[in-house]
């Protein structure tokens, strides 16, 4: 049996109070394994981002536990949790969040720099990773001079530079055209995923469903396992 990278048990999160209260995530139990590329799909507002934020140590659940690599992350102090994220989790945000005033390589090197690695060493590694994501020669350009797809690759290079065990991508293809989106996810699947890592992708994009090992569906804050054909038919 595959070993679990992520184990969330009975997590809940609501926003607001009284009449205005939204139960964004309700009693969700969720597992993701090493070597697995897992999708979380579902309509807008169904709680996907909220759930993944709790699972990746960004948003504290109201109740329930989250174990990443056998660590109960919500029992860590906030500094320890930050360190855990820094070393074990890679994030790709929907709108990249690259610093426009830094070069592409400097952007990619940020996690290593936060890990207090030597500057030149970090930049050298960032350049290597840019090569891996197919952006050789773009290292010294500002990220704004790159296309959307290229910027997404930069964001991915930044997310993988410290070789995290868990990679979280929120709508990585939302602002890309079909082919570019497919290329990127296919790239992540073949070049980044190993049997020692686990990738979770939030997406609406049925064009990339073919790359998933497993798809989890969210609706009204609840998780239901879905089979692929059903989803593709939707």
């Amino acid at each position, binding site marked *: 049996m595959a070993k679990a990278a992520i184990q969330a048990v009975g997590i809940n999160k609501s926003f607001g109070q009284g009449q205005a209260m939204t139960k964004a995530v309700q009693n969700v139990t969720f597992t993701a394994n090493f070597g697995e590329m897992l999708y979380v799909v579902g309509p807008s507002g169904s709680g996907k*981002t909220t759930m*993944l*934020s709790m699972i990746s140590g*960004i*948003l504290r659940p109201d109740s329930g536990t989250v174990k990443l690599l056998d660590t109960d992350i919500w029992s860590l102090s*906030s*500094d320890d949790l*930050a*360190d*855990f*994220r*820094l*070393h074990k*989790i890679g*994030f790709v*945000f*929907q*709108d990249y*969040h*690259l*610093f426009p*005033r*830094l070069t592409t390589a*400097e952007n990619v090197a*940020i*996690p290593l*720099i*936060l890990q*207090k*690695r030597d*500057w030149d060493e*970090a930049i050298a590694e960032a350049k290597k990773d840019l090569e891996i994501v197919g952006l050789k020669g773009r290292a010294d350009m500002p990220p704004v001079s790159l296309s959307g797809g290229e910027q997404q690759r930069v964001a991915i290079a*930044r997310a993988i530079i410290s070789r995290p065990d868990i990679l979280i991508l*929120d*709508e990585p293809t939302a602002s890309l055209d079909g082919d570019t989106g497919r290329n990127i996810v296919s790239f992540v699947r073949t070049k980044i995923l190993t049997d020692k890592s686990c990738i979770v992708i939030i997406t609406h994009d049925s064009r990339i469903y073919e790359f998933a090992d497993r798809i989890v569906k969210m609706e009204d804050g609840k998780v239901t396992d879905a089979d692929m054909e059903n989803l593709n038919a939707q």
Partner: protein
Amino acid sequence: MPGILRIAYKLLINDRAKYAALLVGITFAVFLMIEMTSLFSGILSRSSATVINIGASIWVMDPAIQTVANSIPLPSFMLDEVRSIPGVKYAVPLYSGSALLKLHDGTYQAANVIGLDDTSLFGRPELINGKIEDIFAENAFIAVQDSEFYKLHNPKIGDEFELNEHRGVFVGLAHVASSGLFGIPTLYTTYNRSLQYIPNTRFTITYLLVEPKTPEDVAAIKKAVTADGYLALTHDEFIAKITDFYTYHTGIGTNMMIMTLISFIIGLSISGQTFYTFILENIEKFGALKAIGAKSRELVMMILFQASFVALTGYGIGVGLCSGMIWMARLYLPDYAAIITPMNLSVAFIMVVLIAVLSSYVGVRKVLKIEPFDIFRG
């Protein structure tokens, strides 16, 4: 330099427009603050010129005196009275007053005349031309070669003039530590000659200059003088009293403080505003850094580093500009009084630090408040 500070540095200086605006704001504020306070320091130092130049340890005067410029003469018995105080090594009279000179070409010029004690010449200036003994010669005066000297038409030794219908002759040119505030030349002569040339009231001693036997005697001397109804101040106390007068009783000080405050506010608003937009523009990126695993403390360090870097650079440029301007102004305006003192530099420095602290305070609060979840949600 730690990596995150290097990132902070690059974020700052790569944003040329904001970096320039920040520097201009701080430089401008520093320039104005130092210029204002230096001008004031210059005025203050000149207002105490006589005290500085004469250099006596203790000055005995009428308690109503507020500045060296308004003299209230002392009765001559005070000289013997002070000389008899135990602890007094010696005491001499000083005359200080103003007179109208008629220069050799017939023009009139006001001047400050200082009469030194005939026997000791205590408080005599350093001569750059002529011999001090010549002060005892007939009608002898020594002119001070300071920024006002040209108003005497740059006289040479032997040149003559008239002072209250008396003949006067320049026998020497002197150098003093500080020029006066009032824009008139200064002449030295003997105490007796000054009384002879300048009409006086019944009392003639402007100040009594006292040297104590030991520094420990100062307190007793002051007490004894007070008992006689007069005031004895040490050199520093007298300067402080004059400074106080110009600072609080002439409007010069208040105006200077208002101007300094305005410079501070202008600097603060330009820099604070720019720094705030700078932080706002990067706030989502700071949030992303937080999500990736930067600790709040590290983000605060980045912001403080950026603020202090701009503040110090602006301070340096401001100080440089101001010294340059004062130097230039002195070349063309000999009377230009501004002096940059360590005190002025510290005041401006504290103001700049305040600007940096206040500007970064808002940024720090923003960065502490940002939730990585909001960044994640987009």
